[in-house]
């Protein structure tokens, strides 16, 4: 894996890009008379720092065993859920339900991902988590706003834990290119030249995280340049139709240009990147709506001093299940 030249080129390219972005951010910070809004420069620099963190997380996946990557994503998801529930008003009678959500379901989901038990981890939270939360809240003996409370807890569990856990789940798939799959299906039993699987799953995970983060940035950038029609002013004042479409389109082009790192061909990579960029955008919208409802600017400002992990990974949470589904459906053997 580490000796693979494609992986090295990809990682070096991303590091170079991040290095350039960091230098630009540093330069802008030292130029107060550049005419740029200092708050914008600060936001830019904070985003760059978050990217360094995320990229080191997925870069670590290239060197560490799969299980270590799963644990790292588990910690990230745990922190995101902490922020989500801290922000969500729950009643004191939900305390024990929340205890099991944090202590049992969160680690169990990632353990199942680490064991590669697809049947179990794909249903644990959407089905059994829902059943458990609903029942446990009922057992607490407090029927007030029952459905609302169970929905809040379940939403946190699905968005922060389940969706994010599907990103490291990519590492356990046996991925082939579509051409190889066609060839495999046509091969007679016991043939000599069997196509090998793609095998560079950590690189695919890196590609996915990189594309989603670039999607965020490009949507923001195009929104600043072209943005005219705001989608929902009450939810977010910066997210525009132009930003969404131009940003996702350019993300698709970027993803297609990087197809050589993936098992996809140019067209497949472009289409997949378009879809995950749109999903990431939807994630940003949804999390904005939650934040506006609670009257806060960032998850980070809710509890002062915390970085706001959820602010950075909201798009990943929404894009991960989509990317996982597309990869599993079209690029693995049925």
């Amino acid at each position, binding site marked *: 894996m580490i000796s693979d030249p494609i992986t090295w080129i990809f990682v070096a390219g991303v590091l170079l890009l991040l290095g350039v972005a960091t230098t630009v951010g540093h330069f802008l910070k030292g130029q107060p008379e550049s005419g740029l809004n200092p708050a914008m420069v600060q936001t830019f620099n904070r985003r760059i720092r978050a990217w360094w963190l995320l990229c080191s997380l997925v870069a670590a996946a290239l060197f560490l065993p799969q299980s270590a990557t799963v644990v790292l994503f588990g910690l990230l998801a745990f922190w995101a859920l*902490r922020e989500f529930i*801290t922000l969500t008003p729950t009643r004191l009678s939900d*305390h024990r339900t929340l205890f099991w959500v*944090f202590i049992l379901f969160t680690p169990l989901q990632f353990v199942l991902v680490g064991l590669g038990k697809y049947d179990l981890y794909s249903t644990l939270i959407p089905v059994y988590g829902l059943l458990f939360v609903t029942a446990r809240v009922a057992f607490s003996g407090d029927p007030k706003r029952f459905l609302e409370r169970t929905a809040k807890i379940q939403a946190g569990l699905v968005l922060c834990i389940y969706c994010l856990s599907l990103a490291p789940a990519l590492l356990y798939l046996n991925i082939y290119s579509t051409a190889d799959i066609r060839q495999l299906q046509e091969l007679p039993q016991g043939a000599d030249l069997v196509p090998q699987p793609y095998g560079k799953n950590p690189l695919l995970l890196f590609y996915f995280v990189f594309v989603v983060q670039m999607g965020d940035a490009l949507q923001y950038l195009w929104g600043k340049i072209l943005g005219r029609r705001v989608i929902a002013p009450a939810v977010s004042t910066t997210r525009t139709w132009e930003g969404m479409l131009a940003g996702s389109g350019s993300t698709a082009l970027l993803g297609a240009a990087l197809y050589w790192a993936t098992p996809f061909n140019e067209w497949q990579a472009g289409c997949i990147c378009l879809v995950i960029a749109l999903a990431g955008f939807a994630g940003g919208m949804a999390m904005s709506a939650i934040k506006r409802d609670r009257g806060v600017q960032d998850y980070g400002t809710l*509890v002062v001093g915390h970085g706001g992990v959820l602010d950075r990974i909201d798009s990943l949470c929404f894009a991960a299940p989509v990317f996982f589904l597309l990869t599993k459906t079209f690029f693995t053997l049925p």
Partner: protein
Amino acid sequence: MTGPLIAMIAKLLTGASARWVDCQPDTCQRVYFANHTSHLDSLVIWSSLPGVIRNLTRPVAAKDYWGKTMLRRYVAGHFNALLIDRKDIKVHQSPVDLLLREIGSVNSLIVFPEGHRSAGTQIGAFKSGLYYLCKKRPDLEAVPVHLDNMNRILPRGEFLPVPLLSCITFGPPMWLETGEQKADFLDRARENLLRLKDA
């Protein structure tokens, strides 16, 4: 060794982040007074102090909780807790004198002037202990400490914590003014604490 470890676990578990607003960590003798919403309060405030100051600071904690089991007694012993029996307060053995004797001329205190844990986010009226502490030792700096979200991490009546995030705000120190009445001082202290909520 155990002390820093306990502090680290407490900070990880409660996701506590400390903010110092118009106040700096200092080794001078202080009375940190905080709103009381959870049994973890004293431990968490103590844990969020910088190491040097932590060693000089003794939180006041309820004996009926922290003295109950082996583990709790062990933890309490390592975070320098001063266990006060709330049921056994006598006139000739007032807890104020006991506390002042314990801290001598080096240590600081963490107290909860509401007396008992409030159920929700409301901050109740202050008991007079804080006033007597400051009256007998006018050199003590009274520092308001606001705890946010602790009541959801370990609410009353629960014994298992939920690892959410919390925030601890240290406010500007205050002193007992000469001739200030008890009620005025306690009101002023409570106002200072409430102000930290939105700081």
